[in-house]
């Protein structure tokens, strides 16, 4: 691990007066900042919530930017910005993207994007209440989330221009193989150590890649409660597209951070099938469940921990995830080797497919 270079602003904190000056210049009106707060945990990128008066009018803005050590994901912020730009105005709700910028002094030159704040929150009050009302809310949230995922997966990605900045698989049948090949190459380049157990897991999994993907879709990546903005039980904005790709939408079912487990998982999958008019084969779902566990490992070890080893990221979360939890996930994956796909996926509950739940 290299010694981190000394920085004048090692955490990448934004100062309100600097942000106000910058926003005033961009908006062409005086901006007074009433509050400026960084969201938690902000693992991959920083997100700052700005409550301001713009020309005297109250406005909420969100500044998303790379931390000083770079993002803990394989895509650039420009990639994420492009996703917002193309989704804005479609059936998939996102916050209005305002602008993308680089090279600004107030952010030490880091890439940043600004979007309008959507009223709501990433947590949902009452969601875990053990009451009939709590159960009804959980079902509503799952239905909302599945509906929005289905809308995303049903978009015409070619017409929206997604093929212009995201590599697309050659066909639906090759979607999961395409995803597999990309991440296996990337993992080999960035892992912190050889991980032979993971190598054998990938060799074994490579023999079980389904090809019954019904269509190529826009895949969100990490999704669910904690990522998206909800208001009154409704999903009003999908957020944080750092892992957006083109491929098999089934991957999103396995990367929902426990959201689809708020009701029996099979019911959630059935809702998704009804909403998309497609069938989710047990093999695709099993592959996705296993794959997302590997993909989470590839992100925390290959990106978050990589940043700690090479770019001065000093967050204990990155070390704990990239070093300690990687070993735990490695062992889980190794236990799958030699089994059939469905039996192997039973070793991994659908929940546990997020960065956060990796740690639980």
């Amino acid at each position, binding site marked *: 691990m290299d010694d981190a270079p000394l920085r004048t602003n090692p955490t990448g904190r934004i100062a309100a007066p600097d942000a106000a000056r910058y926003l005033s210049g961009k908006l062409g009106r005086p901006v007074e900042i009433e509050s400026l707060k*960084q969201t*938690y*945990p902000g693992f991959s990128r920083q997100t700052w919530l700005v409550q301001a008066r713009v020309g005297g009018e109250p406005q909420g803005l969100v500044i998303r930017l790379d931390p000083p050590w770079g993002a803990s994901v394989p895509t650039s912020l420009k990639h994420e910005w492009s996703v917002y730009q193309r989704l804005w105005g479609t059936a998939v709700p996102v916050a209005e993207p305002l602008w993308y910028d680089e090279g600004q002094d107030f952010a030490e030159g880091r890439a940043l994007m600004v979007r309008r704040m959507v009223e709501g929150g990433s947590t949902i009050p009452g969601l875990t209440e053990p009451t009939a009302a709590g159960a009804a809310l959980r079902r509503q949230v799952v239905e909302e989330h599945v509906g929005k995922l289905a809308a995303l997966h049903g978009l015409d990605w070619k017409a929206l221009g997604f093929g212009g900045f995201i590599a697309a698989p050659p066909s639906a049948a090759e979607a999961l193989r395409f995803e597999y090949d990309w991440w296996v190459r990337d993992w080999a380049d960035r892992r912190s*150590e*050889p*991980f*032979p*157990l993971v*190598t*054998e897991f990938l*060799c*074994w999994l*490579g*023999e079980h890649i389904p090809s019954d993907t019904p269509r190529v879709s826009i895949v969100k990546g990490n999704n669910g409660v904690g990522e998206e903005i909800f208001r009154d039980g409704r999903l009003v904005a999908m957020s944080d597209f750092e892992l957006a790709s083109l491929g098999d939408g089934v991957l999103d079912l396995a990367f929902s951070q426990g959201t689809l487990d708020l009701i029996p998982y099979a019911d959630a999958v059935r809702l998704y099938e009804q909403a998309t008019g497609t069938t989710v084969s047990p093999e695709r779902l099993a592959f996705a469940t296993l794959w997302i566990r590997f993909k989470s490992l590839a992100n925390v070890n290959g990106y978050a921990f990589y940043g700690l080893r090479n770019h001065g990221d000093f*967050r*204990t*979360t990155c*070390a*704990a*995830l990239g*070093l*300690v*939890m990687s*070993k*735990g996930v*490695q*062992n889980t994956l*190794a*236990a799958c*080797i*030699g089994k059939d796909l469905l039996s192997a996926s039973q070793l991994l509950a659908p929940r546990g497919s997020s960065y*956060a739940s*990796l*740690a*639980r």
Partner: protein
Amino acid sequence: MSRSNDVQPSVAELARVIARTLETYVIPELPRSSWSSGYLHSALVLLAHIEARSAGERPMLVEEGAQLTALLSEARGLAAATPEARELLAEIDAALGLPAPALATAEAAELDARNTALARALNSLIVWTYAHKAAAASAYAPRLLELFAGYRTAAAARGVALLGDAVGKPIF
């Protein structure tokens, strides 16, 4: 758990004391789902890992090196007459040919560096075996897969030992 020749109190004991203090006196005072709480939880995970490493890392590195050497040596013998394995054998030979650290005196970093080179060769062997198990390596692939399974079992156990009490602790 600590080696008897450790300076007392040992690194493991100190890590444990720090963790207990933080858990007892600091964590309860912090708001849940906050930056301070999240970083402290992950620091506790790392302290548990430090404790486990300081107590058992070196013997595990020695054990791993011996296992990797034995596995690659046997695999090398099995594949020696397979023309398709020429490149693989050269890689295995290069890894096995690295100077072996003197076990009694070697620093953990030296042991780890050699193990890493051997594990890279194992990676290549695994990939090659899966690609050739139905054809060029069919005669001895079952034995190679057995060797891999043995390595998995031991490596997983070492991994668990190095996680120590970090298992099950929240990171965020």
